[in-house]
């Protein structure tokens, strides 16, 4: 089968973070880890091209994926593989996006990443197989990816035995009894000694390692971010008041504070009366500007990002986080203040 392999700028040898803005391109044949993958795939399959994109570019331009898939099809691609992305969030998101785009275009596709990678939840129903946490585990990760690729190429469904990871969907249905009646029944089970009975298994959450403290705030560029549903008056982008599916950005250039009547909160989870009377309560631009003028911080980012944190799905919140990190990284921001409401 003719295979196209997706990797990021780092594994393509373009460069590290300084090259994260690299634009998408398609190269002939296998590149970087693709060479080992090609060997593992054997003679039946050929990596005809390698799709490459910088992590920041991929995070900020979700259309990169459809464009690369289109180029891959022109190269005669019959299958697309992405990664392994290990625990790298932006790379994982890019891998997820390109396999989803390939699946939508009718190509079998799979990605490889670590179970903690935030991109895992962006892959929707497209298969992802487990990789190690870091590039030190490249070899076993590629072996698993190659085995899964061969199986997928054979038209078979990937399962947990192939290292397939990703949450199983929970689906609504009507039970025979009401929730209140089931609660009483569950209580009787528990009182009867069953210590396990439940309708909802406990979820597992990622562990996030905080970044190192800023060495000298006086040199740092600082961004203001908020999940307080904070928008220009009239909410021109129609940011949702609950269950946000997007985030917005607006310029702070030329402003020393955010004034009543010019900005407002559309957050549906709290009374916005006091936020709207004094918008700096949500986005503390007034004091941030003072700190900037005093030289306590190196400078403020020229724009703020906002979403609404009210019933937002974890998958959407993860995606916002990865996209914000990529944006801030590219703008050389060293610190951010994210106000929570």
């Amino acid at each position, binding site marked *: 089968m003719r295979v196209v392999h997706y990797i990021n700028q780092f594994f393509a040898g373009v460069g590290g973070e300084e090259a994260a803005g690299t634009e998408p391109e398609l190269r002939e044949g296998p590149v970087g880890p693709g060479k080992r993958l090609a060997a593992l795939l054997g003679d039946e399959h050929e990596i005809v091209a390698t799709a490459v994109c910088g992590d920041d570019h991929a995070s900020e331009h979700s259309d990169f994926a459809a464009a690369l898939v289109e180029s891959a099809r022109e190269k005669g691609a019959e299958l697309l593989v992405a990664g392994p992305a290990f625990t790298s969030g932006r790379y994982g998101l890019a891998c997820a996006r390109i396999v989803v785009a390939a699946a939508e275009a009718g190509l079998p596709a799979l990605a490889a990443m670590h179970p903690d990678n935030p991109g895992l939840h962006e892959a929707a129903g497209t298969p992802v197989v487990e990789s190690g946490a870091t590039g030190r585990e490249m070899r076993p990760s590629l072996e698993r990816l190659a085995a899964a690729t061969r199986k997928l190429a054979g038209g078979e469904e990937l399962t947990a035995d192939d290292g397939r990871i990703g949450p199983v969907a929970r689906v609504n249905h009507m039970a025979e009894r009401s929730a209140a009646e089931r609660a009483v029944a569950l*209580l009787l089970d528990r009182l009867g000694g069953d210590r396990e009975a439940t309708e909802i298994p406990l979820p597992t959450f990622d562990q996030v390692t905080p970044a190192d403290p800023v060495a000298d705030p006086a040199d740092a560029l600082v961004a203001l971010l908020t999940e307080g549903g904070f928008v220009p008056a009239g909410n021109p982008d129609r940011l949702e008041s609950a*269950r946000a599916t997007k985030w917005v950005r607006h310029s702070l250039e030329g402003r020393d504070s955010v004034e009543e009547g010019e900005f407002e909160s559309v957050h549906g989870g709290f009374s916005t009366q006091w936020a709207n009377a004094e918008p700096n309560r949500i986005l503390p631009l007034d004091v941030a500007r003072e700190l900037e003028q005093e030289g306590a911080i190196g400078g403020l980012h020229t724009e703020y990002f906002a979403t609404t944190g009210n019933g937002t799905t974890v998958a959407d919140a993860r995606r916002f986080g990865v996209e914000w990190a990529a944006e801030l990284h590219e703008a050389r921001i060293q610190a951010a203040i994210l106000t929570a409401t």
Partner: protein
Amino acid sequence: MNAGEAGAGLRRLVHEVRELALGDRTVYEAGRLTVSEEAARSLVEDPALAEVGLACASPGEPVRIIGALDAVQPCSKGPGGGGVFPGFLGPALPPGRGETHVLRGAAVLAAGHLPRAQEAVIDMSGPVAPLSPLAATHNLVIEFERAPGAAWEDVEAAVRRGLLRVAVHVADAALECDPDAVEELPDPAATPEGRPRVGVVTNIQTQGKYKDVFVYGRSLSTGLATLISPNELDDGAVVSGQYGHPALKNPTYLHQTHPVVAALRECDDLSLAALVLCPEPVEQGAKELISAHAARLCAGLGLDAAILTKEGGGNADADVSLKMDRLEEEGITTVGVFAEMAGRDGTGPSLVVPPSRATAMVSVGNYDELVSLPACERALGGDRLALLDRPATDELELPAAAIYCALNPLGWGNLTCAEAG
């Protein structure tokens, strides 16, 4: 049962409503409730309201109600209510004894716009109707417009007062009628010994204006856990002024008919021993205090077990989880009723804040999953659904979160969620 025990219980005189219409006089006869339009309107009219409209919506009709606010089950203990809805219509004193007439199968429902009220949808027929308790009742729908310049808090107070007044007015019409059923609700103190003593711990939302719930007419926002008799719920001791979280809302109607209380009354193996109402504060420290204090209160009541319910999502999960853990630490076996927030495709983590020690959870469904509503003939409560900016009668696709009480945290519904396959 001796006379003293009978005196502490509540006798519920049930009048079934099978038909509802507007007319010249308010009359209840043989299952048919006719409501005087003029009388009902005059009970709602207020300087804060410019216009008051009345309509009927019965099960099976091709009607969609949008902007559904609170709903109330008609009840009365005597002309003018006789003490129901204490703190609003009756004096602020504990009710729940003597006799109460209820019109079962009927509800008085307000629909329209209030600040912070997220649009709540009820389809009276079609595939989504089974998700809403108010699709199964004959509803007298009160629509309203704000008077020019009126303060929104005055509009809200007028609508709430009007709903309660109309609910009493229509129940008064049945005071002289023979009931279809007589139900004896013993006082919890008189419940049989030898069975596990179970408390119903009900968290009620206290998040400021338009997201508040009243007990004897007061907000619990600065209060601690409060013990009341479950029978007081039937008489309207708890009244909702909470208009957010359409699917995760507990309207007055469902406090009056509290599903977990009802299920425990029906259970022969357990004793309904107490109802504990707790505020759902927004600060972490207050959540911890309320949870620890409520658990001590339940231990002091000698409870063996508890069923815990909430109102709202996310923030409210923290209250349930903390309280479940504290109750288990006190040796009280606890089941919590949770809504899942697993994303549209159902693959996200279900709970924002899960418990760590207590793990018995009942699921009322995934709030993010989409449901399809076919087009309908008539809409009440507004012409357009602002959420989608579409005509209210259109074919719609909405998250379950927008359907009124679809994931009711008091446990009304049959909706649940499980892994596919």
